[in-house]
């Protein structure tokens, strides 16, 4: 079980002293995480399994608010490091790795054959040829749509292999019916980056997109303008006040049928279903093809667990990482959360059409798998970029000024 406070345990142990011999001393393993209620319950169940298998270890989970965690981690890594901490793969972990705040866990990968079983995420966990954490879940991005809205506007349901031209043509029909073709809520900026990533991946391909986020392409380049030119075609059909609403508010628009499509991650399915949607009227499609013949690349941000450099109980922490990398643990956690396990030997719930579709989509993405704009690009570039994307979706006429600003940031960030 998860002890929020060790005091209760100590008291309990003291009371038991009279009856039993000295209770076995437990080693504490502190774990800082940022789970929402459903994944938290899943993780608590996993921790119970882990503690049952290792009765001498007591895992103390400190759960943070999701947004607050992102700033809190900088403090606790230096001030009071736990033994385990949640974070993200790709460029998002680079500042901590470069500052020596995360521990090299290549030996855990080596000892458990993870290079094979976690192969799909190995590249995004590797910096300087070493692995710095364990990926335990990822989820696909794509377009979620409301079948009822399609019916209300008299638009045919999207079929496999739909092209972007058809998608834009559909948008005009939705506009005529008074339905937002594409919705998003960019108050927190990042949802807009999902749209940009797909525009970029579909227009110029994975390699180019990675060069762009790695700072090798100028933002004033013609190919960047090509991406925005494609985006401009659906810009008029995006929910008008997206800059003032959160992504959950936009999800409500989709649920109510006021919007038809939503470029989102699979975690949104829970919100759609809480809003009353079912597998019957909620649909999922792969983002349509823009430039024909480009190998299809997808977006699948990976969540990870790391050992901070200041961890006190490193041995048990590594044991826990090995446990979280196992197919059993990943199957169990991801089944509860409705996400995809990274371990290729883990299994997916075949009852869930969105997971099946996502698993199918990611395993056949021959182009590559991107993490997400704010994980692929360095933090400052990501912030400036996402602000630019938001501005573009509100005022497409400002494109030149936006791109010049982004180019200025690029020259500073990647020097």
């Amino acid at each position, binding site marked *: 079980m998860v002890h929020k406070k060790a005091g209760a345990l100590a008291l309990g142990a003291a009371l038991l002293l009279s009856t039993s011999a000295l209770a076995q001393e437990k080693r504490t393993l502190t774990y800082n995480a940022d789970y929402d209620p459903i994944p938290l319950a899943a993780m608590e169940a996993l921790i119970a399994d882990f503690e049952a298998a290792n009765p001498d270890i007591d895992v103390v989970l400190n759960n943070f608010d999701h947004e607050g965690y992102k700033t809190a981690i*900088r403090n606790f890594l230096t001030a009071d490091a736990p033994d385990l901490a949640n974070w993200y793969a790709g460029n998002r972990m680079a500042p901590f790795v470069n500052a020596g705040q995360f521990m090299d866990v290549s030996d855990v990968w080596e000892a458990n054959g993870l290079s094979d079983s976690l192969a799909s995420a190995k590249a995004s966990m590797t910096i300087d040829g070493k692995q710095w954490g364990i990926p335990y879940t990822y989820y696909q991005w794509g377009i979620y749509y409301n079948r009822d809205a399609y019916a209300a506007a008299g638009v045919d349901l999207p079929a496999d292999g739909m092209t972007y031209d058809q998608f834009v043509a559909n948008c005009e029909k939705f506009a005529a019916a008074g339905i937002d073709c594409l919705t998003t809520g960019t108050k927190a900026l990042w949802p807009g980056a999902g749209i940009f990533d797909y525009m970029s991946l579909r227009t110029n391909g994975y390699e180019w997109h990675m060069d762009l986020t790695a700072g090798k392409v100028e933002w004033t380049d013609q190919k960047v303008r090509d991406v925005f030119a494609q985006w401009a075609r659906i810009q008029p059909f995006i929910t008008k006040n997206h800059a*003032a609403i959160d992504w959950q508010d936009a999800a409500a628009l989709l649920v109510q049928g006021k919007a038809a499509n939503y470029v989102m991650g699979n975690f949104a399915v829970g919100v759609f279903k809480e809003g009353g949607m079912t597998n019957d009227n909620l649909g999922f499609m792969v983002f349509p093809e823009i430039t024909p013949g480009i190998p299809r690349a997808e977006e699948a941000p990976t969540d990870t667990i790391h050992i901070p450099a200041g961890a006190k109980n490193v041995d048990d922490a590594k044991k826990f990482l090995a446990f979280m990398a196992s197919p059993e643990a990943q199957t169990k956690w991801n089944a509860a959360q409705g996400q995809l396990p990274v371990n290729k030997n883990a299994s997916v719930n075949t009852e869930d059409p969105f997971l099946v579709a996502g698993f199918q989509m990611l395993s056949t993405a021959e182009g590559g798998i991107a993490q997400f704009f704010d994980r692929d690009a360095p*933090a*400052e570039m990501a912030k400036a970029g996402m602000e630019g994307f938001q501005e573009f979706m509100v005022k497409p006429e400002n494109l030149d000024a936006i791109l010049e600003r982004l180019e200025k940031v690029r020259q500073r960030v990647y020097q």
Partner: protein
Amino acid sequence: MTAFWKANQRKLAPWLFLAPGLLMFAVYVIGPIFESMWISLYDWDGLGEARWIGTANYVELFDDDAFYTSLKNNVIWLVLYMLAVPAGLLIAIFLNQTITGIRIYKSLFFFPFVISQVVVGLMFSWFYAPDFGLFYKLIEVFTGQGIAILAEDRFVTYGIIAAGLWPQIAYVMILYLTGLNNVAPDQVEAARLDGAKGWRMLWYVILPQLRPATFIAVVVTVIGALRSFDLVSIMTDGGPFGSSRVLSFYMYEQALSEYGYRMGYGAAIAVVLFAIMMVFISGFIWKMWRDETER
């Protein structure tokens, strides 16, 4: 020892009493000011090695559009926040009468200052919210087209200032209400006998007696305008696309937020903000010092 104490007791005692406060002030206020200035000359992510770059942060700052947006918004805040002073005075005069239940009305008017700024921000974001916000609906009824204030870069700063004015007016009102208690009734009586009423009464008789209250009201309003951070953070997060940023929020974004980590650059912004505040603060201190010595 005791002889020394006896001789200097009257000189030493005030300093002994002041010592804890002075120590705290030096460690937590004076020290950090100079430390910020020092950090602003470095390129530092808060974790790794700090690199000396001289004035490069300031050079970049003066070529940064976001900085000028924040500066402009700070000026708008300063100017419009001043409305709280006349508005607070008006309400205070209105409430300064003796009828049954006036205390209830006074506390109702004071209520917005009691609730947290975060709650004020949330209430106003719902008020402005597209599709279901009351304000949005009202605009829709009158013009046929709703305006999401917080998504419009032209209106967003004004929308936030309106939210900030609500508790600020209540604050100023309370200051004036206490001031009005001290207005000498005999002077009012005398002015009335001389035939003064309405505006002339207010301008020549009441307001001069309210000068101390006005001074405090202006000071707290200027400081409130310059440190406006919580409302911006709650209502828009600086958005849409950075158009509602103010200097304090921009500093937080650059130095401490999820995508920031530029301690040096954030410190440079803080130094500029400090310089602006210093203009006002020295003005206030100078005035207070003059008033004290004139007596």
